[in-house]
């Protein structure tokens, strides 16, 4: 089986504002050195997928810079490799993608060319580790037309924000309710589709020209009776950064738990990201660090607790950072105190400044001077 990977990374997310002021949600920095999209992209590469198309639209500069030629993922290839699929102007065509199905439809060439027989569609916003090979086998064994990856969500998720699926005893999907006000169950669709490439082409030709542009709402859900749509159950860690600042914060704090680090960093292959060639993190004589992640190039002279410190950050003497996320190249000057805050890249927190959040997390945009 040869599989084409497609990653939906065009999303604009107001709920992650101001982190998405300068970048697409798939390019949101996580865990000290990664971007959200690294997980799905690494999963695909780790599963043996050698050709990946990234569908971008909203604010793609940061994402493009991050992906480059795809060399960190071994996707700088003569055959296959990484394809950035941006909306473009051409004769008789719309410019912007009007939905997920439209985005793929407008890039029909990548489906038409190449010897891949199946397509895996994932999202750049999801944080999870998975080797898809079992999914491929499951799909074949079930004789499915489309296989959707699902997960039973616990009480830490707001079920009304997810697509809730109903399954029969054979795991066939009988109903999907997108963001139901009153969810009938707790099994959610994780935004990962697997299907035959020819079938996808056929479905897109049958739908998109009719003015229907959404992959889930206009293609999968209306065809649940006609097509064999099966659910593949995933039991690992899975979170969607796009669900808002609190979810983004929760995901970053989760990585301070050993079991989450073990699963996301060390199981089912590595997570690849853009290399920055920075020296090891340095802890000076006055450093106090507990339960925190410290990325390369950072120098800590102050106190850091329960926090995620990205690359090239400076925490100066007497500064205190607790329960916070401090992104790349931010400087926390002497004696400043930060509690429960999120600072984007290249911020400066001036000497002695005290900023404390509580359940509402203050988020400061890139290059803020505080």
């Amino acid at each position, binding site marked *: 089986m040869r599989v084409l990977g497609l990653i939906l990374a065009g999303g604009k997310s107001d709920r992650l504002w101001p982190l998405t002021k300068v970048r697409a949600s798939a390019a949101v920095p996580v865990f000290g050195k990664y971007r959200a999209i690294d997980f799905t992209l690494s999963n695909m590469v780790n599963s043996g997928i050698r050709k990946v198309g990234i569908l971008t639209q909203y604010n793609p500069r940061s994402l493009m810079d991050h992906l480059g030629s795809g060399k960190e993922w071994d996707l700088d290839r003569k055959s296959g490799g990484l394809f950035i699929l941006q909306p473009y102007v051409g004769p008789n065509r719309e410019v912007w993608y009007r939905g997920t199905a439209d985005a793929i439809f407008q890039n029909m060439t990548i489906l038409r060319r190449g010897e891949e027989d199946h397509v895996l569609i994932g999202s750049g916003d999801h944080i999870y580790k998975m080797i898809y090979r079992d999914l491929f086998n499951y799909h074949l064994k079930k004789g499915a037309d489309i296989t959707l990856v699902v997960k039973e969500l616990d009480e830490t998720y707001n079920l009304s924000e997810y697509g809730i699926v109903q399954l029969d005893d054979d795991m066939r999907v009988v109903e999907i309710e997108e963001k139901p006000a009153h969810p009938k169950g707790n099994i959610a669709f994780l935004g990962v589709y697997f299907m035959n490439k020819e079938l996808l082409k056929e479905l897109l030709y049958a739908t998109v020209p009719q003015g229907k542009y959404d992959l889930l709402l206009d293609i999968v859900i209306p065809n649940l009776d006609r097509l064999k749509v099966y659910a593949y159950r995933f039991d690992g860690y899975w979170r969607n950064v796009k669900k808002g600042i609190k979810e983004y914060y929760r995901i970053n704090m989760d990585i301070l738990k050993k079991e989450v680090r073990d699963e996301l*960093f060390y199981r089912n292959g590595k997570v690849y990201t853009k290399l920055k060639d920075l020296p090891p993190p340095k802890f000076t*004589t006055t450093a106090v660090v507990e339960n925190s992640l410290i990325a390369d190039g950072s120098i800590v002279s102050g106190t850091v607790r329960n926090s995620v410190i990205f690359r090239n950050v400076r925490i100066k003497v007497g500064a205190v950072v607790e329960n916070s996320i401090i992104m790349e190249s931010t400087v926390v000057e002497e004696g400043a105190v930060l509690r429960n805050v999120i600072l984007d890249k290249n911020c400066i927190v001036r000497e002695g400044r005290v900023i404390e959040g509580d359940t509402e997390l203050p988020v400061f945009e890139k290059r803020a001077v505080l």
Partner: protein
Amino acid sequence: MGNTVAMILAGGQGTRLGVLTERVAKPAIPFGGKYRLIDFTLSNCVNSGIYRVGVLTQYRPHVLSKHIGIGRPWDLDRKDGGVEILPPYVGRHESDWYKGTANAVYQNLEFLEENDAELVLILSGDHVYAMNYNDLIDYHLLKEADGTIACMEVPIEEASRFGIMITDVDGKIVDFEEKPAKPRSNLASLGIYVFNYEFLKKVLIEDENDPNSSHDFGKDVIPRILRENLGSLYAFRFDGYWRDVGTLRSYWEANLELVLPVPPFNLYDPNWRFFTHTEEMPPAYVAPGSKVSTSLVSEGAEVYGNVFNSVIFQGVKIGRGTVVKNSVIMTRTEIGENCYLENVIIAENVKVGNNVRMGVGEDAESKLDPKVYSGLLTVVGMNSVIPDDMVIGKNCVIGIGVKPEDFKSKTLESGDYVIVREE
């Protein structure tokens, strides 16, 4: 400026580094949390805009060759130029190992020819320093020299460990003494040379044909140029940080200098970055209740214990209740719980059990080799396993691939060793 080609001498064994260089060439030994020694010279080349580099390997080249690969981390994977590994090869007349540094370059004159070399930089792959070679080259061109040697003022009492240059007021070298007992100057050669290619070619061919030569730049070629007045050699004074980490003690000291509040050697200069081939690893994690200070802790490290004044490489695990002090712990080594380690160098992929004490007790002379192992440091070679509850003294040596059953008792006295001979 002429077309410059750098030749990095990377064949050295570094015998005084003991178990650290038993399996790898000295330029490949790990340094500073994530680097290997050769990274500094390679990075200096590319930071100086020199993109034609030959690496001359000989002793145990596998790790080094794999590390350099096609030179991608240094942007040396180029269509034009780039990095080339130049191992000794079987020629038409002789199947020759490199007999000395000069012979190594001599055997690769063809490489220099192919690259249209006008200037040749001769560098060592095992020094730690940041140097913009353009300063050296500019000086060389300004003086219209045939060759220029980078040198540094050293304390006069240490001068007898170096090749010492005696210059006139213009900086022209008038005499050169290799490791003199009574040094006449404190200007030490750093083993960094730039030569005009045609001049170098001529003297290397002559040196090759000299039956009395050991074919070494410092011992033979430079003295002969001066003695026979073959050309003009100038001394370029360098006043930055430079270390030849030739001994275990100097290796350990140079590592620990990096953790000083104002380190003499700055890894964090955004305008002079050091590149390396690293494995992708997540950020370092420090657990609740841990204390980490005056240390480098690299990516992928997970610290549950306490680390003081140490350099911790990538992927190292340090268990709860453990104290690591004044030590260098290399990639992927795992240290168990409630251990106490002081003044140790532990190589890659070592497993230290629980309740192990190392570098404790009285000092004693090494029973293995006092010339290599001295200065209180206890050293552990790669892939060894140290069982629970071991008490290991000062100045001990645990070799490469030592297994728990190789230890005869739970105590290893200071100065003692456990070595498993290579099959």
